[in-house]
């Protein structure tokens, strides 16, 4: 929830934002009116992907950028289809 407050504040002051939420908290972004939300199908605490999964981190970031560019109204939300890929770090 904390980030939702800040995202709304940035946007109301003229700075566009995109926020990346894990699926468990999609409803939080929706009810808070987060301006642009990218949802990842990742476990809580692993928003961008597993440790060491640089490819997924980049896919998520690019999707966030694309949403920044394509959204035309507040409350824009996109859920990435990619399932979580476990990491291999120890």
């Amino acid at each position, binding site marked *: *929830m*904390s*980030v*939702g*407050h*800040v*995202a*709304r*504040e*940035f*946007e*109301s*002051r*003229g*700075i*566009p*934002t*995109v*926020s*990346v939420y*894990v699926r*468990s*908290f999609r*409803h*939080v972004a929706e*009810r*808070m*009116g987060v*301006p642009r939300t990218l949802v990842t*199908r990742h*476990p*809580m*605490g*692993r*928003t*961008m*992907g*597993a*440790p*060491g999964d*640089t490819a997924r*981190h*980049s896919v*998520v*970031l*690019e999707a*966030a*950028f694309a949403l*920044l*560019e394509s*959204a035309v*109204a*507040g*409350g*824009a939300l996109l859920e990435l289809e990619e*399932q*979580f890929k*476990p*990491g291999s*770090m120890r």
Partner: protein
Amino acid sequence: MTGSFEDFRTSFSYGSRSDISFKFLKSMSDEDAAGFFQQLLIEVGAAYDTGDVSQILELAYQTQISGYEPDPEHPSRWSYEDRPFVKLPKPLNESRVGLLTSSGHFVAGADPEPFGVENMTQSEAEGRIGEFLRETPVLSSIPRNTPRDQLVVRHGGYDTRSVVLDFNVSFPRDALVAAEEAGRIGELDETLYSFPGATAQGRVKKVAPAWVEQISGDSIDVMLLVPV
């Protein structure tokens, strides 16, 4: 330790079996939680023979989603009808991008020292979660070139084991630098920001304008926000 099944499932939420990846068990019914454990054991049994743990992970993931489903009888006070929105002021490849996460990162030597405690550990932060949830969070400024071993994380509200292995899990500095090098964005801000998101919501709402003013001072054009 003995007790009821309810005692057992609630003990994962900052109790005797604290495991914050599964603290949502506290808010589940006994029946649903029992169903989760039963199915978990079935999937473990199957994985013995197949070596495929994907169904175990999928079960945990789906149960976590269920565990955080909003309770219609207790609607959140933090709900809004309006949807603030501004367009990009210029193309991304000409924009300065900022990063703010609620992952609880800070630079070694610049510990926000919550409650005046020096070198608070992750375990101590989890133990004091009730106090964090009543406190105003501190915003940490993190130079983008901070060495990996100088970037510290502490957050009483989520399992930080993965982010200790790789900060990029919730603080995607390296992917942003790569996007800058590839020309996808104009530049990444020199200073990145983080705070521990398990905090008093009314207080973070109150402090948000000052944070936005501070970060806007970096002349950023767009912000990437990453909650955990």
